[in-house]
């Protein structure tokens, strides 16, 4: 009986340690939240630790009145929707086909694809290829180059390969072709799996900033993350955005409410999507794939 008591004690200690860790991890986000709701005046004199000094929606008003912010939000939404559609289309088709062991040339294709994970041309050749294709200052510059994530593709392929052959065989007897099998049988059965990658890709597209940085300099096409980058990191009084004009001060501390409000606005979609990721993902997706 004594052994059981000590076991519980060690578990309790672990819970405390991890709880502290969680607080440390969460606090910066909490801080963002409270600053975003603080009034600019209060931020000048006080730094809020746990609660905002005065609750004010100034930051959010400035964010939503900024035309540049709204257009970049739209751009990110378009990039995410179209991008994920392309991602899922290519990944599902590719993974399904490559999971068919009887396909001629399968090993060759797989080696060629996996090779791209080991070796790539580097930044400059990539830049040159994409721009020579005309993908400069076009919305497709942010969508096409990120068409497939090889890592996800391989995991999906392994998963499809693990599904029972009988599914496909009985469908073929009923006269279904491969496209029908994929769309009407395989995908519905693999829904949690497919949903997980849908969400992973969605978060990736939403966080897109690198291709925009390389290929876009038209302000009207910039996605949210680039806009955020200007507000948060590249802050410069010369970039007279609407938000700055509204607050009209050079002090960085006055921008804080606006900065933090922008962060919240950019992160809310991820927070909304996050519980669904958690729900579907914990089905041991990773274990099965790595074992193969």
């Amino acid at each position: 009986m004594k052994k059981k008591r000590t076991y519980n004690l060690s578990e309790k200690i672990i819970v405390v340690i991890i709880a502290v860790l969680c607080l440390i991890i969460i606090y910066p986000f909490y801080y963002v939240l409270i600053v975003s709701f603080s009034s600019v005046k209060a931020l000048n004199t006080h730094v809020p630790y746990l609660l905002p000094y005065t609750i004010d929606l100034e930051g959010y008003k400035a964010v939503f009145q900024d035309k540049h912010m709204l257009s970049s939000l739209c751009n990110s939404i378009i990039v995410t929707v179209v991008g994920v559609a392309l991602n899922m289309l290519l990944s599902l088709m590719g993974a399904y086909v490559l999971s068919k062991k009887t396909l001629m040339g399968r090993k060759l294709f797989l080696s060629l694809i996996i090779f791209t994970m080991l070796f790539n041309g580097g930044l400059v050749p990539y830049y040159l290829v994409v721009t020579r294709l005309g993908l400069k200052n076009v919305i497709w510059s942010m969508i096409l180059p990120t068409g497939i994530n090889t890592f996800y593709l391989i995991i999906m392929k392994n998963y499809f390969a693990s599904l029972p052959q009988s599914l496909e065989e009985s469908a073929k007897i009923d006269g279904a072709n491969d496209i029908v099998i994929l769309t009407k049988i395989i995908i519905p059965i693999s829904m949690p799996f497919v949903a997980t990658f849908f969400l992973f890709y969605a978060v990736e597209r939403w966080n897109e900033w690198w291709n925009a940085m390389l290929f876009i300099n038209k302000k009207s096409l910039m996605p949210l993350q680039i806009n955020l980058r200007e507000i948060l990191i590249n802050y410069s009084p010369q970039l007279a955005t609407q938000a700055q004009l509204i607050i009209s001060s050079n002090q960085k501390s006055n921008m804080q409410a606006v900065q933090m409000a922008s962060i919240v606005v950019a992160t809310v979609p991820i927070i909304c999507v996050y519980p669904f990721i958690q729900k579907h993902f914990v089905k041991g997706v990773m274990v099965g794939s790595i074992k193969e």
Partner: protein
Amino acid sequence: MKKKNKKNTVIYILERINKDKLLYAMLLPVLIWYLIFCYMPMGGLSLAFKNYKFNMGLWKSPFIGFTHFKTMFADYDFWRAFKNTIIFSLGKLVLHFPTPIILAILLNEITRMRTKKVFQTVLTFPHFISWVVLSGILINMFGSTGIINNILQAMGLRTVSPLMSKSSFRPFIWISNIWKEVGWDSIIYLAALAGIDPTLYEAASIDGANKFQSTIHITWPSIRGTVAIMLILAVGSIMSSGASFDQVFNLYSAPVYSVADTIDTYVYRASFTVGLNFGYTTAIGFLKSIINMVLIVVANKTVKAMGEDGLL
């Protein structure tokens, strides 16, 4: 006879393609994507041996052999970036690699499912936030008027600026990366741990083993395989995302270039800000990719020689 065999093979191939024509049709766009965005840039590596001139384009630019590589070996900035990349990656291997494993082992001890799930949710959250946002938060919190310095001043201590100081920038990168990724990285280890048969632990405790002993003799052998694969991936990324480009790029600034500049950030600045010859920066990228590939292959072979399943 030979002619007949050739004809048969060709017919055989065509027959198989025809049988699976829908499959090949589905695969085609995928292959085209890889061709355009992965293999065509590889073809562009020939730039590393040319003196790139904008008006002549890639094919017509003059060939200069290994000149760029000679320049590279004499380039102080390149070696600095190379050194920093290695230091960042080694630090990451030592500091960052073990933490998700330890966290997973700790989390696995928690029996109440709900607590475990709540912890997992919180810990995994920062992984989905981009470095653009996280850098904004960190720059704000650790800035001269930020909350951290506020607290320090209130306690009567000196203010700090970790992002501007050469001695603290690297540790800051390591720690903030752990903060962002430890939850996510621990998932794969947790999955491996979940597959361990609980009766093994019961049998061990009946035999008189304490927690520590059962961790070494039961837990560790069961996750060894996973650790091996993750280690290969980590070693393979020494040259690149050892210090994640996104992270360094968004957090660094001129005062800390000497400790923070990595190969990737150097190539970016050299190509687009400073305006060095594209052929030169391609050569740097080329070298980096080769080292990368060698590292993965070596790591994979080493792990296989030690008895675990490799990645390739």
